[in-house]
């Protein structure tokens, strides 16, 4: 359970991800999507969080070795160059530049020197290109221009071939075009989505 003051944000959550699949998570603002991810990754203290891979519990002190998470806000520190950050994550910066050539000139730049969209794209690629079994992407399409969204969708599909990916975003079209399974968080609980009517019933769409 996640509570802020008297408000219960999340009563219970359950989400699965399979290698080779992209799982989409939808929910209205304040529904608890990010809280669930933050709790899962250890960025928010809550009781009774259980993460397991192939039915083996994951040591949450080192969860980043197995699951990489793109948070909603800025993750990279302001005083580390992009190149250094990629090096720490074990990602070849030039492989990233091959996909997005304009980042050649940002090699020694800090994240604050980039525009909001450029920083978001760099963080997204840093997470998705680093080694892990699963990825959780919290609003990966926010701040990103339509052309880059297509490239990001391509990258998500490519990485999902041998990884499991969970994506949440308010860009319904972008998320539904990459997701194999959809879930919605409503009234503090997660529920599977099989049709557009399910989203209407849970108050996410009209």
């Amino acid at each position: 359970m996640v509570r802020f003051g008297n408000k219960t944000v999340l009563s219970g959550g359950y989400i699965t991800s399979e290698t080779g699949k992209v799982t989409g998570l939808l929910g209205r603002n304040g529904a608890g999507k990010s809280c669930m991810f933050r709790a899962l990754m250890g960025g928010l203290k809550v009781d009774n969080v259980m993460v397991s891979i192939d039915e083996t519990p994951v040591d949450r002190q080192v969860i980043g070795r197995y699951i990489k998470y793109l948070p909603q806000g800025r993750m990279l520190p302001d005083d580390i160059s992009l190149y250094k950050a990629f090096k720490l994550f074990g990602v070849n910066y030039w492989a990233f530049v091959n996909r997005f050539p304009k980042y050649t000139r940002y090699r020694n730049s800090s994240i604050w020197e980039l525009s909001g969209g450029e920083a978001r794209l760099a963080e997204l690629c840093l997470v998705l290109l680093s080694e892990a079994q699963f990825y959780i992407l919290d609003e990966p399409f926010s701040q990103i221009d339509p052309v880059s969204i297509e490239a990001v969708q391509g990258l998500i599909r490519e990485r999902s071939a041998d990884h499991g990916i969970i994506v949440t975003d308010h860009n319904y079209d972008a998320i539904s075009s990459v997701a194999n399974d959809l879930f919605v968080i409503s009234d503090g609980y997660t529920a599977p989505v099989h049709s557009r009517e399910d989203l209407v019933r849970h108050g996410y769409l009209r």
Partner: protein
Amino acid sequence: MTLRDKAFLVWHYGKVQLIIGCVYNILCAQLLLHRVSYAFFVDVFIIKAVIYAITFYLVTQFRKKDGIFFYINLGLSARKLQLRVLLVDFLALAIMLTVVILIRG
């Protein structure tokens, strides 16, 4: 991740605490070197712990909300990083006090 990378991350995560700790260590070493008796040693560690707790609280309050995920994604937990910073800080104090004892004889 290499040892150098780990050291870099500990420094990066705890640099405010380490800088404040270093200033305090130098101050204590100066005091012990010239004026104060050895009885002050216990107080040095108690004050150090209080300063560390206050700095930790302030740093945690003003840190970027999602900045912690940079370290978590690298397979480190906030608790582990904090323990390493604490260890380095107290080790530096212990080394400095040992040097003072050796100088004073």
